[in-house]
């Protein structure tokens, strides 16, 4: 169609014609280009994902085979592993750091640090973020935080032992936990990470508000951008609370303050309230971007507009809004005021509604669509089904009486992993495959991607579904050896089964890693719009050049015009394509002299 061909906005061209040529350091290391920063986040976060996975393998060895020496255990120092057996002190460090690395240094930066940075300017039609240098600092701060956290493994007494949630008094008392420098490093790392997060979120919010291309009205933005916008607002308001709490915990550890010390009049529960007041918005930070990107991918894979675009937007806003008043559901067993507990129960049950709206809308999008089962679509559909299961287990736990026996059991662990792995990580597999061509100019192997998806899906469910069962059977969370309890012994075969499945699941991820790395060099060269998608980013060559467009494109329609009659013989109609019936949008006036 000639109109499609005409409307191709010009790319910025081989040139950084406006800028002097940059050194390697400025171009790839200390870059202020949002795409490079996104890719930097990607490599660093994938590394931490691997670290988190290795920690998980050790946990699963211990839980599945408490009596047997761990292969490779001899490599670790005597303080961690003795005679090949993981020591209890080391085991609690494993669970604490697995959670910490996965939440703060893998999933959050993968969803936000990578995709907010990479996608936002491309999808709204901006040259770069509003504050490119602050963006660069945000990456380096996150990396510094990750290094500080990793360093805690190498200090005397090792890393934290009090769970990624660091409940006091254990976390505030080195005499109780045995951890000294490690706790300090955790707190400092979190404060630095908070800075990185706030700087990043600032950027995303300002860029989305002020730097949208002409015609890119709020309700023409893709859902991935909406989700990242709302996530950034959550981040900017929630992370500082954690920073404050971490500082107070740090001071209790090193300055002798008494914030959480009941003996001096402090309140141990204060920590839990502060942590979860941050923690609950945090889990929505960990899922909303995934939901947004999945919406884009499912619409693409169904060749249909997203079902109920406006309700999807309001659902995101509703989830974010309600997310501030549910934090107590993490504390039903803490001994808190039961009346307050009831209010948290109601609000938590309520928050299921917007989430359910989204699930039904994804299904409505796929219904009678011209489905294309490409790898991102398969992972996205996997997301929907796994997130639904995770959400359903959430309903169980939201009801306080049901939560009372389930709290701090493997049931909770199952829920966490269904939403974080079944949810966020599957969405990330989808997103990484989908935007790989935009990042690197190559396609990942479709066949390897499908094999990886199916194997992951099967082993993932084999690993985490049985955890619901052993949790209901009473196996506690973070426990070193379930077999010390007679009532748990009958479940031990299930623990073994889970461990075997987990090892297989971990092994299968090397398929993805291989696919990812191998395709960088040997992957098929990507066409400009490999998925026949409508977003602005596909108007640029792959990989997208520095500065994105020479002149930002005009936007003529929403992002999900698939199978639109106006498109003629194509089943997609990009946002930037000007049809004869379209009028140019009127931009805000550009100041003279630019």
């Amino acid at each position: 169609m000639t109109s499609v061909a005409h409307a191709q906005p010009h790319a910025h061209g081989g040139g950084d014609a406006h800028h002097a040529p940059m050194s390697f350091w400025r171009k790839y290391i200390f870059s202020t280009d949002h795409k490079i920063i996104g890719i930097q986040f990607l490599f660093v976060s994938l590394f931490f994902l691997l670290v988190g996975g290795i920690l998980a393998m050790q946990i699963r060895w211990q839980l599945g085979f408490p009596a047997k020496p761990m292969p490779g255990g001899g490599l670790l120092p005597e303080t961690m592993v003795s005679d090949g057996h993981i020591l209890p002190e080391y085991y609690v460090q494993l669970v604490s750091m697995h959670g910490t690395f996965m939440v703060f240094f893998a999933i959050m930066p993968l969803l936000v640090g990578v995709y907010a940075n990479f996608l936002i300017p491309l999808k709204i039609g901006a040259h770069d973020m509003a504050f490119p240098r602050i963006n660069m600092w945000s990456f380096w701060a996150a990396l510094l935080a990750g290094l500080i956290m990793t360093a805690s493994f190498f200090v005397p007494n090792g890393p934290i032992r009090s769970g990624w949630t660091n409940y006091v008094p254990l976390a505030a008392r080195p005499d109780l936990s045995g951890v000294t420098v490690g706790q300090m490093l955790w707190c400092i790392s979190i404060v630095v990470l908070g800075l990185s997060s706030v700087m990043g979120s600032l950027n995303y919010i300002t860029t989305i508000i002020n730097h949208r291309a002409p015609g890119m009205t709020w309700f023409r933005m893709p859902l991935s951008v909406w989700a990242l916008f709302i996530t950034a607002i959550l981040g900017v308001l929630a992370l500082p609370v954690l920073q404050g709490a971490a500082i107070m915990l740090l001071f209790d550890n090193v300055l002798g303050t008494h914030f959480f010390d009941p003996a001096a009049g402090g309140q141990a529960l204060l920590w839990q309230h502060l942590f979860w007041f941050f923690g609950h918005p945090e889990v929505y930070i960990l899922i909303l971007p995934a939901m947004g990107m999945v919406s884009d991918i499912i619409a693409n894979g169904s060749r249909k507009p997203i079902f109920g675009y406006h309700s999807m937007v309001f659902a995101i806003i509703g989830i974010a809004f309600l997310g501030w008043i549910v934090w107590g559901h993490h504390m039903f067993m803490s001994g808190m005021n039961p009346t307050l507990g009831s209010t948290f129960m109601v609000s938590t049950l309520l928050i299921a509604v917007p989430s359910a709206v989204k699930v039904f809308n994804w299904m409505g999008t796929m219904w009678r669509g011209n489905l294309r089962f490409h790898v991102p679509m398969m992972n996205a559909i996997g997301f929907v089904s796994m997130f639904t299961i995770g959400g359903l287990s959430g309903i169980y736990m939201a009801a306080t009486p049901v939560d009372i026996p389930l709290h701090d059991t493997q049931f909770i662990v199952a829920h966490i992993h269904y939403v974080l792995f079944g949810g966020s990580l599957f969405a990330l597999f989808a997103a990484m495959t989908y935007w790989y061509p935009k990042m690197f100019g190559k396609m990942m192997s479709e066949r390897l991607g499908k094999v990886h998806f199916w194997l992951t899906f099967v082993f993932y469910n084999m690993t985490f579904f049985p955890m619901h069962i052993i949790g209901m059977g009473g196996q506690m969370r973070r426990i070193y050896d379930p077999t010390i309890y007679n009532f748990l012994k009958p479940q031990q075969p299930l623990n073994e089964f889970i461990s075997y499945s987990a090892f297989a699941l971990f092994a299968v991820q090397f398929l993805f890693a291989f696919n990812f790395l191998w395709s960088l060099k040997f992957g098929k060269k990507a066409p400009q719009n490999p998925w026949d998608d409508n977003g602005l980013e596909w108007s640029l060559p792959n990989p997208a050049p520095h500065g994105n467009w020479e002149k930002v494109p005009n936007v003529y329609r929403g992002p999900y015009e698939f199978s639109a009659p106006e498109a003629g013989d194509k089943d997609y109609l990009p946002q930037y394509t000007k049809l004869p019936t379209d009028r140019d949008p009127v931009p805000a006036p550009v100041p003279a002299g630019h």
Partner: protein
Amino acid sequence: MTATSSTPSTAAHKRPNYVMIWLYLFVLTVAEVALAFELPLSRNVKLLLLLFLAVWKALLVALFFMHLKFERWRLRLIFIIPLPLAAILITAVIMEKVF
């Protein structure tokens, strides 16, 4: 350079008298210290009055020095949104402790 046709970021307004605001702030501060130490009121009344004075001063700074009085609602909202969140956290935890 004259303004172009788009709406200005802030409503055209007369510049506030900053010296007057400074005077108000000075008087309010003196009032606070006097109230805290000199006046023989009950503790709770003192608390309420002091908080009232503090909030008044804070509003003067926010509305006039930070020009929030003259900015559009969208900008004011950015500053306002954290406040109910803070209130929720503090109220919920105090209620919880009282139990």
